[in-house]
């Protein structure tokens, strides 16, 4: 049964959201139209507006104060109203495949946010308040236009998935030490010239993809990532791999293809779990290739 009382939402909402298609859901997934929602806004738990060709979300959407899931993907939104930041019970916001250029400054007020999907937009930055989303576990901002990230993002201690691939990042925040729950980090297809030393704060990280950047080196601290199983740093400008890589005891797959490497550190032979090494299109001599293969007799090495 629906709960709550009638709550006023301006005519603008009804205008934008009218129609007979299902938009809003209350308990038990019973669905009804937005006309019903505007009459009973406090019952709305899910707001599903994907694929509506909408260009603007009315400010009065902020009246849906009990909404927990908002799905706005595949519309034409350029921005979201500031009032969406007042929806403090939202745990999932999916605004993928829009034309968002900015987010509300106060998005950090959505304290219960767990999953924030903003991929395939035109965001040029994330507001600093994003650092206040302390419950966030998944943040996908891939395929945007960001050149930098707010510093505070490195303190998101519950973040397990961070995908910022396919942006224009020149650097990452210096302090990533707070990202102790990170498991999957994807910073590929940016313009990064270096990775911060504090990346070793990601003690739980299993996979790092930093391919197709402009990295000329890797921090030695990367060797402290004892749980890392996949490291992809192909298609960069690397001239050397730090010796500390030999400490990455869990590493199973290493891709260093399309760089400027002439050798690999001998410590790599300590990587007993390394199953695959793809090192094509570098500057290894035949002698070096043979040496590396001798170091890694149980690894599938591809030059």
């Amino acid at each position, binding site marked *: *049964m*629906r709960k709550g009382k009638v709550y006023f939402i301006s005519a603008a909402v009804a205008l934008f959201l009218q*129609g*007979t*298609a*299902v938009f809003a859901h*209350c308990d*038990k*997934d*019973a*669905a*009804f*139209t937005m006309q*019903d929602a505007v009459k009973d806004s406090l019952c709305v738990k899910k707001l599903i507006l*994907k*694929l509506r060709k909408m260009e603007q979300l009315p400010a009065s959407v902020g009246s849906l104060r009990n909404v927990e899931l908002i*799905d706005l*993907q595949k519309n034409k939104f350029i921005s979201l109203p500031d009032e969406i930041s007042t929806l403090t019970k939202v745990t*999932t916001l*999916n605004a*993928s495949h829009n034309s968002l250029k900015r987010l509300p400054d106060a998005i950090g007020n959505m304290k219960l946010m767990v*999953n924030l*999907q903003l*991929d395939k937009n035109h965001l040029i930055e994330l507001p600093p308040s994003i650092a206040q989303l302390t419950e966030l576990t*998944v943040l*996908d901002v891939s395929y945007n236009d960001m050149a930098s990230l707010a510093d505070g993002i490195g303190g998101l201690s519950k973040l*397990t*998935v961070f*995908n910022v691939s396919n942006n224009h990042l020149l650097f990452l925040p210096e302090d990533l030490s707070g990202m102790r729950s990170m*498991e*999957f980090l*994807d910073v590929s297809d940016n313009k990064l010239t270096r990775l911060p030393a504090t990346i070793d704060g990601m003690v739980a990280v*299993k*996979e790092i*993809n930093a*391919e*197709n950047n402009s990295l000329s080196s890797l921090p030695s601290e990367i060797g402290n990532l004892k749980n890392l*199983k*996949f490291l*992809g740093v*192909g*298609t960069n400008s690397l001239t050397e791999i730090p010796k500390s890589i030999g400490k990455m005891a869990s590493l*199973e*797959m290493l*891709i260093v*293809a*399309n760089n400027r490497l002439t050798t690999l550190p001998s410590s790599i032979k300590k990587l007993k779990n390394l*199953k*695959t090494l*793809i090192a*094509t*299109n570098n500057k290894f001599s035949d002698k070096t290739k043979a040496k590396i293969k001798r170091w890694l007799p149980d690894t*599938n090495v*591809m030059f």
Partner: protein
Amino acid sequence: MNKFLLASSALMLTTTLAIAQDCNIPINHISNFPSVKPSAQPDSLRIPSTHTFQMLVQEGDPYSNPLNGTVKSLFDFTGYVPINGSSTIGFIDLNHEGSTTATGGVTVLDVQFDGTDKVWNVTQKTPVDFAPVQGTGRNCSGGITLWGTSVSSEETLPSGDADGDGYQDIGWQVEVNPASRSVVDHDGDGNPEKLFKMGRMSHENFVMSSDSITCYETNDENPGYVFKYVCDSAGDLSKGKLYVLRLDDAIGIATSGQWRQVPNGTPTECNNVRSAATGLGATNFNSLEDIEISPLDGMIYFVSKASSRVYRFRDFGTTINDLEIFAGNPSQNYEIHYEDDGDTLVAYEQWRDGNDNLTFDNLGNLYVIQDGGRNHIWMITPCHTQATPDVRLFAVTPAGCEPTGMTFSPDYKFMFVSMQHPDASNVTVQKDAAGEYVVFNRESAIVIAHNGFLGDTDSTFVEPETPPTTGIGTASATARLAIANLYPNPVTSQLNMVVSSPDDRTAYVKVYSMTGTVVIATEANLSKGNTDIKLDASTLAAGVYNVTVTTSTGNLSARFIKQ
């Protein structure tokens, strides 16, 4: 048999084939039709006058078990899976693209053809249970195996490993047994699993050659690669070797290439086949869509949406050859000979962007479904070359929709296809082959056949309000009696019904329980156009109900769920 059963094995291509093509299509073959007039999308479906269609299921229709709720949205792959090779009884595995997270799914329709009335009956509608595999995301296109299962392709890559098995949760091919409505448990340990060895990527579809061993797949992203998967043993997709295509030169120059093996032994390797492919120098075709095998000569056809081209090549095992553009380039204009009041006229229709799904019939005619441009369903005969085109237009689709997911019955009399996300504002009512009045204003899966094989023998059985030769986005007011919408469904309190009527008239509305008891009876005055009727369902017990609308000229019915 299905479309893939007739596909020649790529491994059979040890000699260069040069088959003289016969493009005289038999008169009753599904691919024998006069093209429809090219246009922008009207708000109804326009197919050749030689063909008719029947609506099978629409978004929001209730599942057979009320506890399962209603059929999800975003219809994609519409795969007919025959039972024992039958063309009259089988399953339709209907993909739901969902979103970037685990909100996809597959609906299984149990379908049976009634040879007397010549209509398809949907006897069961059931969602597949993906809970044991952490759900599925963006079930895009897919394919049919030769052993009565389907493969659903997850076209999204959200990271995460909720069950801690080392494999990320989403971004895989998933084999579905429609009979059990479940994911196939390959190792028999009681826990089904996705097809990890085929690699994690933004999967578009899957095609299997007739050897039950060799499969092809693509990834719909940039970079977009062509993969080949060779099963260790016939009939088991869970174990095999993965290869990626590397051309010998740049696209546009190379006609040959090599298959390079992609490591897929460990979960980490399976998770990262795209990175490995890049490292191995795979050729990036950018945003690949469907890949299929020609039944005529075994050539492999695939689509790049970014370039809006259909490519083809021959597979020689470790190498490929004869790579060429078969059709497309967005600016390409094709001469369409279409029918207009019995006359054959000519129009030049631009290919435009967005070529997407591919399906071959048994004669090698290639259907190309478009997600972009004007969202057409094209057909290209095997006689076609870029120099001497033979391109035909099978369908102009309803406004707002992307046609998706075409498959055929084994006898190639029936085509199964969906209309994804048509505009909710579409209002034109069409009478389908089962005599139902339908509106393409929500996700719809349909079957299409020659007039003689489906429904009434009247070849003009499909009656779009907008005449086929003139309807260019001219949504007319409804002139047919129809239930245009019924919502919410499931309902908890007020049920809203929109009835379209050609004129003012009185209607008698009754709601029946599944035991046939009338639980609501009321009268409504219909106005010309749409009339909203509100029914109080708040006192009904939970369950499935039928609502009927009776007027002086016809009866309508629909089902809904009370929660």
